[in-house]
């Protein structure tokens, strides 16, 4: 079973998986490796990282030195194709023009979705993160605990390959032995940040990213991943040997043709296809779940983008993994007499409690890092080290004025020079030009550091999406309308980030570039800009107040499962991708279990 066209579908499948990114990839992987017949539907085109990735291209080989443009928002060489916050022909609506209510919706219409370009930062939620309401009275507890998900975090790390270390810090849980790959060595600026931050009481530890710092353990991991399933073990053992370790060059955001980092297209889909149990149709824009007998889903309707035809695919189970907001959109557009306000929406909670990550940044220049000798600091391309949230106790004691934490990602080093590397340095050079400018460039290159805060947003009633009553996309599918609101928990956190970054820069003997924003409402980046949007169909303990149970199974329709970020009841500062994959694996195990017991 391979890539097929919409005309060549099987009559029916065990499971339809809508979406091919972290959630869709993991869902399809687990299900097909364990014997289920799976159809994956992806709205974008087929994408082949092995041949399409610009691995060693230099900026001068691309248009505009690789600058960001409306066509390629993260620069020409970013892996994303047919994606961005604005996708031609696929509009969405903002309920307000007010800047504070702005939400931007990133889509990546391609096989593998945004996993092709993401930052590969792979952090586990900690025990507190699943019980946030119990801890501070805000937001919602998850209907599962860290202990429930820990074995799946282990499995995902073993499968995709994550570097990091177990540091024993609060709410920053360790992985089981053998799960993590060794972290890469810190670069000079990492070590200077670590030394100076520690003087301020701020920890700096190894980063966690989905990059193979050495080959995966193909001898022992397969048995841990697929106990009792020698076929699956054989497939994944063979595939692990086909993935090369990192060659310490070319940015991960371009994708990786040697499969040294995680993207769904290089890690989940090849073994899933090799199982013979997966069909993939690309250019398949799913817009509706169809209802069959006894109130169960019978399949999905989709538009074949290659010919504009409306198609139907049938299955025993439907898994939505289309990205949080697209999953919500499909549910809300699946209207019937039984579900007049959208499928699985008897609670009225579909679209509610949308969250992104709080983002704020500051950069500086450090004299100690000037005029260093030549160094190759490409490394694993980012985040060899990071700072996990460190003020849990002060926060719980009410000393900070905001309820949830953030982690810090660092930038620095002698990166491949690009358009911006020596732009805007007039504040350091007093406007030099000529030979003096060239000397200044040599002096300052590699002496810049940057700090990105990534913090938890608490779900609120003002952040949600719904179907716009008028606007449709180019396929005629009704589009989403977004409402967005930050609370003071987020804006104060953003202001705290700014001050922390300033203190670290100054502790390094450096100078901050530009103003340190004390007004959190100005320091915070717009909703959706960090591209960690989750929620919209949260899981919970009760059908009245949530959309799914702890397995991602919708309360209303028991053969519909949501395995992407839509089910998150909270959005810890930890980047969501690893948790999405762990939840998807767990949901897929449950689906398999129910199918074996003939309950689906």
């Amino acid at each position: 079973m391979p890539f097929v066209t919409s005309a060549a579908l099987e009559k029916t499948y065990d499971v339809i998986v809508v979406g091919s990114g972290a959630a869709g990839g993991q869902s399809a992987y687990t299900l097909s490796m364990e014997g289920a017949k799976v159809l994956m539907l992806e709205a974008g085109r087929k994408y082949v990282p092995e041949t399409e990735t610009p691995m060693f291209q230099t900026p001068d080989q691309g248009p505009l030195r690789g600058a960001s443009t409306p066509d390629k928002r993260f620069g020409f060489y970013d892996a994303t194709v047919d994606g961005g916050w604005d996708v031609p022909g696929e509009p969405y609506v903002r309920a307000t023009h007010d800047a504070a209510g702005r939400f931007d919706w990133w889509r990546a219409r391609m096989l593998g979705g945004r996993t092709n370009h993401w930052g590969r930062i792979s952090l586990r939620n900690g025990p507190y993160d699943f019980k946030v309401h119990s801890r501070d009275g805000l937001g919602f507890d998850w209907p599962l605990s860290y202990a429930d998900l820990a074995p799946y975090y282990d499995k995902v790390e073993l499968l995709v390959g994550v570097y990091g270390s177990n540091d024993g810090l609060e709410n920053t849980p360790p992985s089981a032995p053998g799960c993590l790959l060794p972290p890469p060595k810190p670069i000079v600026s990492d070590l200077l940040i670590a030394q100076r931050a520690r003087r301020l009481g701020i920890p700096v530890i190894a980063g966690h990213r989905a990059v193979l710092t050495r080959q995966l353990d193909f001898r022992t991991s397969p048995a841990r991943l697929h106990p009792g399933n020698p076929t699956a073990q054989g497939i994944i053992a063979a595939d692990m040997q086909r993935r090369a370790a990192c060659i310490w060059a070319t940015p991960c955001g371009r994708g990786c043709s040697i499969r040294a980092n995680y993207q769904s297209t290089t890690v989940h889909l090849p073994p899933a296809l090799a199982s013979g149990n997966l069909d993939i149709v690309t250019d398949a824009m799913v817009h509706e779940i169809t209802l069959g007998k006894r109130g169960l889903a019978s399949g999905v309707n989709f538009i074949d983008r290659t010919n504009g035809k409306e198609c139907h695919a049938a299955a025993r189970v439907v898994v939505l993994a289309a990205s949080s907001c697209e999953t919500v959109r499909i549910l809300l557009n699946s209207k019937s007499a039984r579900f007049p306000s959208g499928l699985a929406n008897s609670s009225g909670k579909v679209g509610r409690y949308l969250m992104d990550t709080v983002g704020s940044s500051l950069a500086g220049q450090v004299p100690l890092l000037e005029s260093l000798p030549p160094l190759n600091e490409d490394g694993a391309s980012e985040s060899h080290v990071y700072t996990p949230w460190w003020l849990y106790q002060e926060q719980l004691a009410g000393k900070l004025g905001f309820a949830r934490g953030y982690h810090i990602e660092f930038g620095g080093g002698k990166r491949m020079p690009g358009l911006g590397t020596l732009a805007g340095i007039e504040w350091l050079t007093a406007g030099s030009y000529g030979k003096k400018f060239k000397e200044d460039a040599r002096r300052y290159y590699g002496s810049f550091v940057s700090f990105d805060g990534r913090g938890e947003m608490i779900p609120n009633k003002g952040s949600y999406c719904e179907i716009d009553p008028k606007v449709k996309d180019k396929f005629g599918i009704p589009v989403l309308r977004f409402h967005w609101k930050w609370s003071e928990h987020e804006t104060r956190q953003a202001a705290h980030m700014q001050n922390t970054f300033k203190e670290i820069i100054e502790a390094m003997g450096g100078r901050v570039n530009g103003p340190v924003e004390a007004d959190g409402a100005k320091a915070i980046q717009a909703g959706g800009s960090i591209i960690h949007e989750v929620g919209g169909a949260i899981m919970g303990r009760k059908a009245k107040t949530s959309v799914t149970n702890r397995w991602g199974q919708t309360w209303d329709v028991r053969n519909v499962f949501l395995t992407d970020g839509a089910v998150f009841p909270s959005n810890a500062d930890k980047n969501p991708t690893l948790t999405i994959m762990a939840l998807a694996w767990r949901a897929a195990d449950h689906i398999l279990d129910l199918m074996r017991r003939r309950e689906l």
Partner: protein
Amino acid sequence: MDRRTTIKWMLAASASMPFLQQRAAGVEATMVTPQARGYGTDPDLTKVYHAGDLWPLILTPAQRRTASALCDVIIPSDSVSRSASAAGVVDFLAEWVSAPYPIQVKDRALILDGLVWMNFEAMRRFGRDFAALKLTQQHLICDDICCEQNAKPAFAQAAQFFARYRDLTAGGYYSSAAGRKDLQYIGNVPLKSFDGPPLALLQKLGLGPEQVQAIEG
């Protein structure tokens, strides 16, 4: 479609020279707004692109001459590396100001106006266009506009142009092979292992083995 722009901000600096005012009023920069489209959301990422491949280049030979002279005042050749124009930066600038995207369209107006201003200022002070001036004369003009913070009000817009032009020149230069070599960038090559910085360097920076140990465990 042709767009004609009168260089109003240029008049501020030539206010004391009535005949130049007259000339300025009569001279309009011819700006072609290209009908070109961008490369779209799904371009081939692996092929090598050259200026002019994707959209026509709008700089005239005269504009290129001024652009080239100004590039080389900003990044001249020295004992280490070649000049900006020798590294192909003028082609990059031509590609940039000809591109159909919003940032580049905005830069197009600023830069084409700025190039006109450079020639007017050169004429006003020295009676020749900018590219024909001696280096010392070019510096006398650039000294007045090279730092936005210190520029006199009459030069404010010229200084804004210069800051942007320097950023683009530096961006074009340091993202080229000549610039990478100048900065001694040695990455973008496959390595068997990533060994981190040499200990001697770390010790010099006060970052002894205990720092490395603290992170690596």
